[in-house]
């Protein structure tokens, strides 16, 4: 299965592989906010946690439909289904590859963008913590959505309609934990909930997504 992970990361790195896609979108989305909301530091600082989380969420969403559709179209999904690898393992590796090529770079880039939004000093630590805890869930939920819509032509829009509501718990807890951390309040409860959701998705969704893929390959 590691071979699949390595292959997917190499594919993402290659030209047109979409590695920089999520990162670039995240940058652009955050940079746009002051033009829309106004440059006034105080306001930006208070809404920065929410903006960063929403931008990260949309950046993850962007690169979801590449996860299975490319393999579906060139036939490798059929071959993977008949290979010794369990489909659950294939789905988990695909989600992990998506996180490594999208979620992780976002976590690394987020503090820099926090500066642009005048994020309070105490928040940077929590920014990285909430992103580390939360973005894997975005990848696994997104992979489940991609598995559902793999057979659908131009399924990108449908994918976002299906996946965005599933992101709401992670977004709420992630932004809340970050906001409380920024104001120095105790944020252990939202943090634990965020981590709980992520662990839940990692543990359960690959099985459901694998079943969806099998159904779509029929």
């Amino acid at each position: 299965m590691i071979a699949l992970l390595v292959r997917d990361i190499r594919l993402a790195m290659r030209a047109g592989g979409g590695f920089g896609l999520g990162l670039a979108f995240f940058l652009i989305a955050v940079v746009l906010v002051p033009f829309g909301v106004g440059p006034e530091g105080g306001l930006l600082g208070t809404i920065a946690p929410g903006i960063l989380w929403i931008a990260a969420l949309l950046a993850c969403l962007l690169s979801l439909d590449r996860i299975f559709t490319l393999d579906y179209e060139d036939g490798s999904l059929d071959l993977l289904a008949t290979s010794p690898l369990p489909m659950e393992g294939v789905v988990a590796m695909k989600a992990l590859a998506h996180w490594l090529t999208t979620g992780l770079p976002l976590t690394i880039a987020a503090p820099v963008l926090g500066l642009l939004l005048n994020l309070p000093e105490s928040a940077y630590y929590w920014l990285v913590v909430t992103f580390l805890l939360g973005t894997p869930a975005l990848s696994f939920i997104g992979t489940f959505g991609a598995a559902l819509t793999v057979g659908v032509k131009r399924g990108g829009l449908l994918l976002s309609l299906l996946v965005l509501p599933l992101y709401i718990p992670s977004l709420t807890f992630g932004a809340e934990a970050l906001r409380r951390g920024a104001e120095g309040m105790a944020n252990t409860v939202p943090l634990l909930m965020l981590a709980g959701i992520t662990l839940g998705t990692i543990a359960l969704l690959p099985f459901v997504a694998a079943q969806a893929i099998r159904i779509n390959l029929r």
Partner: protein
Amino acid sequence: MSIWEYANPKKFMETTARLMPWLVALTAVTLIPGLVWGYFFSPEAENFGTSVKIIYLHVPSAFIAINAWIMMLVASLIWLVRRHHVSVLAAKAAAPIGLTMTLIALITGAIWGQPMWGTWWAWDPRLTSFLVLFIFYLGYMALWEAIENPDTAADLTSILCIVGSVFALLSRYATLFWPQGLHQDASLSLDKAEHVADVYHRPLVLSIIGFVLLFITLVLYRTRTEVRARRLKALQARERMA
């Protein structure tokens, strides 16, 4: 997993054909009087004034909106476990009704909220969970439309319904973390002390029963159409094959 277990659409069609006229009559007999009674005769409430009359739409529609999704969840489980075609088609038929009821609950809640709380919309845990439910309904219906093969569509929408329910509950719990909440407590809860004075209680129960019957009638009516549409698809598929 998609073995063609011999479900029995014909038996369903025959029994519902007999039931439909009775159901329509029963719905009319309960829904119309319920609404009329609440609209014309319920007195003014101290804190709400006459706007309390909106309760006869807001509460029943909210009740149906939630229970329609639960019914769809159960029907999806029945489909995945027992491969019973009619139950998944009933879930597909119930979605637009649930969507409309959620919309009615949101609209009446917003219109009613305007004089009470001074704002059309408040990001209150209860209201937002209805908004989230609305999006789930949209996603469910969109997934049905997006997939041609009826069996695949049935399997995938059932999976989405189950996973969606878990996340809907999570969202409901997540929004409880927000500090303020404007919405009243449950105005009709079985265990807690009576929140609604008796004079409003009876018409409210009647209109809820009316809405439930309306839901059942519409679901059966739409399921019959879904069964026919599914047969049409099966015949067309066979036409292409021959």
